[in-house]
């Protein structure tokens, strides 16, 4: 029983780390641009497919493929900012609607390019790491995800707190009009936020490609999870997103292990509904932004 609990805990840590990458990107984009990016799950999907393309089909090194995937998805993010979100800045629901359209386009484009069937990506290393306890281990591939997530989130935190660009980003998130009056270019902060946010989703997809089935609709479940996390965490809060990702991952993983996946999904959604009813600003949210 103890092994099962520990193993479930290890799985939850893995789930928390890639969900945090996705949710933090979503929060960053929302904070700086005020856009709810419904196509965020599809950016994750694009990350997974870039690993499939560069690592499986082109035979590149796995980590090189992940890096290419991150930059590629970040570039897709830049394109979205320029083509969709910037022209729609004055339309409160516009960005959300445009991203729903883009979601359909990306799913359909990937289906046309790679087929509906799910792709098999073999992990570069099959080994698992034990912890000295029988029955508790973590596949190396999952450990990579955890390490990458921690490293990237720490890097992002340093960037936001220590660099001038980071200050500009946070100032825009607090009050975009006042930031613009101080000479901060909203176009530039939007570009940076979009590149980082999309890149984080891309790297999450790239690293998990060998673990989950890589298919055109894989972003579907991810976006639902990400929304639950950002609502529970408080919709503009990066720290909240990380904490909520850990909380959600533990609840979801344990309920899945001891009941089943559908019950876990229901539990997660109810968790979000309860937070919405009791404290709509979420655990870490301070002000209402809608």
């Amino acid at each position, binding site marked *: 029983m103890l092994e099962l609990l520990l193993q479930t805990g290890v799985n939850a840590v893995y789930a928390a780390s890639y969900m945090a990458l996705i949710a933090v990107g979503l929060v960053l984009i929302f904070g700086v641009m005020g856009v*709810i990016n419904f196509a965020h799950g599809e950016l994750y999907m694009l990350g997974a497919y870039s690993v499939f393309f560069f690592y499986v089909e082109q035979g590149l090194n796995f980590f090189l493929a992940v890096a290419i995937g991150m930059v590629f998805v970040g570039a897709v993010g830049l394109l979205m900012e320029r083509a*969709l979100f910037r*022209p*729609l800045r004055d*339309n409160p*629901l*516009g960005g959300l*609607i*445009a991203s*729903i*359209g*883009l*979601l*359909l*386009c990306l*799913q*359909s*484009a990937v*289906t*046309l390019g790679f087929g*509906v069937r799910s792709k098999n990506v073999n992990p570069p290393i099959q080994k698992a790491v034990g912890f000295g306890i029988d029955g508790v281990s973590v596949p190396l591939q999952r450990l990579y995800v955890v390490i990458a997530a921690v490293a990237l989130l720490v890097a992002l935190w340093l960037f936001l707190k220590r660099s001038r660009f980071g200050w500009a980003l946070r100032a825009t998130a607090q009050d975009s009009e006042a930031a613009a009056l101080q000479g901060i270019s909203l176009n530039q902060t939007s570009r940076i936020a979009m590149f980082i946010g999309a890149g984080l989703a891309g790297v999450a997809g790239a690293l998990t490609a060998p673990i989950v089935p890589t298919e055109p609709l894989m972003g*579907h479940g991810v976006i*639902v999870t990400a*929304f*639950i996390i950002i*609502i529970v965490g408080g*919709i503009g809060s990066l720290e909240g997103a990380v904490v909520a990702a850990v909380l959600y991952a533990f609840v979801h993983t344990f309920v899945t292990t001891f009941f089943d996946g*559908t*019950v876990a*999904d*229901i539990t997660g*959604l*109810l968790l*979000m*509904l309860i937070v*919405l*009813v009791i404290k*709509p600003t979420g655990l870490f949210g301070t002000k209402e932004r*809608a």
Partner: protein
Amino acid sequence: MPNRLPLLLGAAALAVALILLPHQLSFSQQEVLVFLVINVLVVASYRLLTLTGEWSLGHVVMVGVGAYASALISKQFGVWVPLSMVLGAAVAGVVAFILSFPLFRMKGFYFLIGSFAAGEVIRLCWKKFRYPFGGPKGLKSIPGFPDITIGETTFAFWNAVNFYYLALIVVAVALVFLYRIEKSRLGLTFHALHWQDKLAESVGVNAWRMRMTAFVAASFFAGLAGALQAHYLTTINPTMFDVEPMVYVLIWVIVGGTATFYGPILGVVILTVINEIVLRELGVDQARPLFLGAILILSILFLPKGLESLVPKIGGLWKRRNKDDGNSPGGETEKA
């Protein structure tokens, strides 16, 4: 009263066209037509909620509540199908009433996400509980609409054309109700809540009760659409009511526009024709979501008020061409 005549003639022409329409179509197009008529009710009822300024992502689940409820009532208890359809719609209304308590503590984006979560919980329950909802495979062999015999001829409703006429009548009656609601004092209050909710509340409008009323009425008619669907297909499953059809409803409504009663209907009709007839004829089946997504993006970028915003322009052109006596600006104000 002389202005009524062209309107009546137009309505009569539309009625004749709708009656003759299915006989000009292939069998698969007749099937599409049945769903189109049902979807007209789905988007028109959705608009009733958007009048209050709230956008729900749970509307298709409400369609599903009506479908499941009507199917179960008729199948398990042997209730006469037309009655069970009304009861199914009522169940959707009751579910909406219960959901109003948590959901209308939220507004805007929070309501959007909250309604999605509530809907998804309901849908996952259908998937989870094999009894009575049938689990992931859903319900099968739902009784169809009973045959109607008028004189010598019997109308059987497994037939797409006959069911189309039935759906047309049900949907037309529902649209009249929806239109009357919108034009009533209640509908005006919905508008007031949308544009000036604080002001409306300060003159004594109970915002929660108004939003609840709109949500319950919208869900009732959505449930009726679902009941039509259930008794036509005779089989339903949870996947029919997931996010994907909801995204389509959003696309229809947004591309059509929500400022007028006919906007969403225009959207669903035009996009269904493009999707099911033009794109299917072109043979680009897998690329169809690509086209729809592109249409949505282009319309939000270049036609943010929807297709309905083109109608007055076209009408204006037509009017100007018809009476070239110079008093064309007066026509607009007279109508308003």
